[in-house]
């Protein structure tokens, strides 16, 4: 019989203790720091980066990962694109009564494995169990702390005309993998989520390349939304070349069927880099050394800076440009 989480697992008694021992401590370990009610730790820097994110992905398991992997990679990547070295992570679990204990074990194991790969420690956690129907299976919140190093500080203030915009690989993989895994629209595909920790790759970039101005991970809303936000936040105009954006053919096929545009689909293991154009080839060479960066491509240029309203433009085949907006609301399949 399938062992399931019950409300008693969340009541702080014997079952809670067991759950923590058997699942969380088993995978995450139990360091000295966590014997108090708070984790107490020394951070090797004056300046730290802090980020928090909640994960509510549906379905919880999908090709290429699960909610736990996403909870680690998402937070690691948020720290890494800010120029920080991810150091420690905390994790809060809100579990629906009836959730299979084996699934929870698998998710927690995945988190431990991903944390190890990314070189971060999970130092504090919390578990709550809620009544059936209060959440959809399992929600996870992670908070990450990263260490900032002065030599890795990003320099958005020196963005200049001619700077290159680079994407580290194919876009829309996560979006299509999730869409297909949900099985609602009948889409069948072998596309796997790209969810991966980018911190080692980003660390190498920051060590080797001095001209990196800005980095961001194009998650929800996709590449286009991320670039629109960068253009508006830092008041520059980007001209993007549609043909140079790497898209897997299966992702394009799925988009053609449903009337989606890959530039608005979510990514979970990609980074957009704005860099001095003199260093674009060096950046590409570093990216291409990694499996997750082998499809990296220069996708556009900064065409003007310090403008009133920053814009994202896309160059068309016939030589005109068209302004792109951020994703408006949720992506929905279209018939027209």
């Amino acid at each position, binding site marked *: 019989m399938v062992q399931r989480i019950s409300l008693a697992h969340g009541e702080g008694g014997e079952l809670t203790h067991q759950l923590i021992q058997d699942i969380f401590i088993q995978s995450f370990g139990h360091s000295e720091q966590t014997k108090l009610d708070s984790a107490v730790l020394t951070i090797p820097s004056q300046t730290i980066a802090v980020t928090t994110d909640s994960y509510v992905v549906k379905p919880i398991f999908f090709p290429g990962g699960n909610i736990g992997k996403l909870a680690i990679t998402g937070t690691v990547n948020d720290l890494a694109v800010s120029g920080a070295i991810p150091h420690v992570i905390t994790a809060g679990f809100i579990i629906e009564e009836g959730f299979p204990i084996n699934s929870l074990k698998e998710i927690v194991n995945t988190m431990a494995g991903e944390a190890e790969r990314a070189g971060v420690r999970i130092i504090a956690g919390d578990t709550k169990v809620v009544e059936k129907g209060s959440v959809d299976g399992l929600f996870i919140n992670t908070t990450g702390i990263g260490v900032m190093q002065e030599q890795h500080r990003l320099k958005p203030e020196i963005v200049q005309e001619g700077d290159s915009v680079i994407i580290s690989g194919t876009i829309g993989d996560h979006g299509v993998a999730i869409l297909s895994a949900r099985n609602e*629209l*009948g889409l069948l595909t072998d596309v796997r989520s790209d969810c991966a920790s980018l911190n080692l790759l980003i660390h190498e970039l920051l060590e080797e390349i001095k001209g990196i101005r800005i980095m961001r991970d194009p998650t929800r809303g996709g590449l286009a939304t991320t670039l629109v936000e960068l253009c508006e936040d830092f008041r520059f105009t980007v001209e993007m070349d549609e*043909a140079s954006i790497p898209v897997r053919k299966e992702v394009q096929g799925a988009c053609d069927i*449903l*009337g989606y545009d890959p530039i608005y689909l979510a990514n979970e293991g990609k980074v957009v880099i704005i860099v001095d154009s003199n260093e674009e080839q060096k950046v590409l060479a570093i990216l291409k050394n990694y499996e997750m960066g082998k499809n990296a491509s220069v996708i556009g240029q900064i065409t003007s800076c310090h403008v009133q309203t920053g814009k994202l433009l896309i160059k*068309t*085949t*016939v*030589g*005109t*440009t*068209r*302004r792109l907006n951020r994703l*408006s*609301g949720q992506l*929905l*399949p*279209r*018939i*027209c």
Partner: protein
Amino acid sequence: MANMDLFSEPTLTRDSVEAVIDLAKRFKEEKGRIPVFMEVCGSHTMALAKTGIKTRLKDYVQLIAGPGCPVCVTDQKSIDAMIQLSEEPNTILCTFGDMMRVPGSKSTLMKAKTGGKDIRVVYSPLDSVKIAEKNPDKEVIFLGIGFETTIPILALAVREASSKELKNYSIWMTTKLVEPVLRALLSSGEVKLDGFLLPGHVSVVLGKQNYRYLAEEFNISGAITGFEPVQLLSGIYKLIHLQLEKKVEIINDYTYVVSDKGNVVAQSLIEEYLEADDEAWRGIGTIPKSGLVLKEEYSQHDAKKKFNISIGEPRVTKCRCGEIVRGLITPEECVLFNKGCTPAHPIGPCMVSTEGTCSAHYQFMRGE
């Protein structure tokens, strides 16, 4: 399909643009003005905008977005009725994704869903029949919007529900037909159009022969075209060419999917299940026999008969979309433009679609 890529191949696309511009210049030399065509189909409008063709050609060829975006021409009152339908107890409302954000007079289906109504986006109408099968204790209603491409699929859904004897399945039919709206536009007075880019996928069902009335009764040409850049440009080229030759014809420039007769299976399914009825068009008003509804014998699947929802008359407004699509006025000449009518609160179809003529003017005006 190997050949499909050729229809968007960059060099061929650029050569095609040059060919169109050359011919359009010749038109201007001869006639002292630039040619004006209407792309009837909303997906053509989107493709012309997305590929940049509309912008690239704007000094040489004027392209007017027509009434062929099914969600844009759905009347506000009709959307209000759909939202009201979602408030019926024990109901699952199913819809194409396109409808979710189209504004009614006060709200949208998306907002109704956020408010807790069971509204589900499906890819195919047949998926909504499956939902009805799985939920025998719920009423499942599909919002049946669409032109002739989609209409046979709605009829197929009714056929499926009927053969499975699903008493809990119905369709809220608010479909639109191309011929009545083009006739209404062409008969309502002056039209400054040199031809139509005819909807490629509607023509798959209707066939080329369906458009004879344009040439024979209204003396206006049309080119049935596909949606790739080279296809659009080839269609525009051929329309200019007809003008220069002083010929009026219907051209099938999308022969690999459109035949003379159209899809006979689809046509006979439509005939079996549906009949023409008056339909309200957003911003244009009611056009006689411009939509298809379920025949009496299928009324158990007709949501309009099953549920007591009053739609009322379409809203009477000062919207001048009708004249804009006939090329008679520019959006700025409409009293509602940028006042009562904006992309956030659109009155007429030309403002609902992001690529509609009014919406495009609004964005341009704001320097976007």
